[in-house]
């Protein structure tokens, strides 16, 4: 295993390193500030978990959509312009009382970014990637405060470059009283990864 001390620049804070790289690339005219701004704003405004939240909220209130989404996720998401990864499948998997899906990329950090945006830092770290595939029940309980009884099947989805996953969480109680435009606010990125469960909660808790 690499000792991070051996790698060049390994002492520098990642942000400082990124800034240094950016300055150098701009100085050498290999990158423009406009392009950087455009990409940043795309990830802040257009791409992110808000897309996934819209999908989940719609699936909660529209059973035809939910069926189509689960039957052929990639095609259904494409209709809404929510792919952008050519030749990649995004498969939406449904969590229920008895089945809890959770995703991880053991090899690297593949993530369904068109619907969830950039992956959280913890998702990319070796600790999560090694523990979640082997000891998901323990990891969910200890690292995510999500205890699951032994009678709930935990299905770990090891995601890859070609096939990515997104969880359709169970809705919390009380969503019938929430208007359609507010419903996405009750969905979390963590629930769409599978490290949080909304079905055990009430909307008033969220």
């Amino acid at each position, binding site marked *: 295993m690499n000792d991070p001390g051996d790698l060049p620049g390994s002492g520098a804070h990642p942000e400082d390193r990124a800034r240094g790289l950016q300055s150098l690339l701009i100085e050498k005219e290999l990158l423009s500030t406009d392009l950087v701004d455009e990409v940043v704003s795309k990830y802040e405004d257009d791409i992110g978990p808000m897309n996934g939240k819209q999908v989940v909220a719609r699936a909660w209130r529209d059973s035809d959509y939910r069926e189509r989404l689960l039957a052929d996720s990639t095609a259904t998401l494409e209709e809404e312009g929510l792919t952008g990864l050519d*030749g990649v*499948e995004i498969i939406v998997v449904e969590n229920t009382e008895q089945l809890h899906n959770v995703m991880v990329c*053991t*090899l690297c950090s593949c993530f369904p970014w068109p619907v969830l945006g950039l992956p959280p830092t913890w998702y990319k770290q070796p600790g999560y990637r090694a523990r979640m*595939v*082997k*000891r*998901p*029940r323990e990891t969910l309980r200890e690292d995510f405060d999500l205890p699951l009884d*032994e*009678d*709930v*099947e*935990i*299905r*770990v*989805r*090891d995601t*890859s*470059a*070609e*096939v990515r996953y997104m969880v359709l969480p169970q809705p919390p109680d009380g969503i019938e009283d929430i208007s359609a435009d507010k419903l996405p606010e009750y969905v979390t990125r963590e629930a769409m990864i599978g490290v949080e469960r909304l079905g055990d909660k009430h909307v008033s808790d969220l």
Partner: protein
Amino acid sequence: MTDQIAPLEAGTQVRVDHVDPDAYKRPPAYAEGAEGTVTAVRGEFIPPEHTTAEPLVAVQFAATDLWSDTDDQNQTIQVDIWADCLQEVSG
């Protein structure tokens, strides 16, 4: 390289072959030699650094079949594996 008899389909029992597939198609180390069930055919994809599309299938394993030091009877792992890294097993 093993001969594939027929395209793998859901329900087939398979074993992850411990041969030396190329670096871009290697199944996860934890699955090497393990037996599982095909749960879905994902379709044809072009592997990295390859030019032709190949079939990829979803394989599901019980945790207890992958690791000897787990006793969680209700844990499964589903991984997408290139079809030519899988050998059909009978029974």
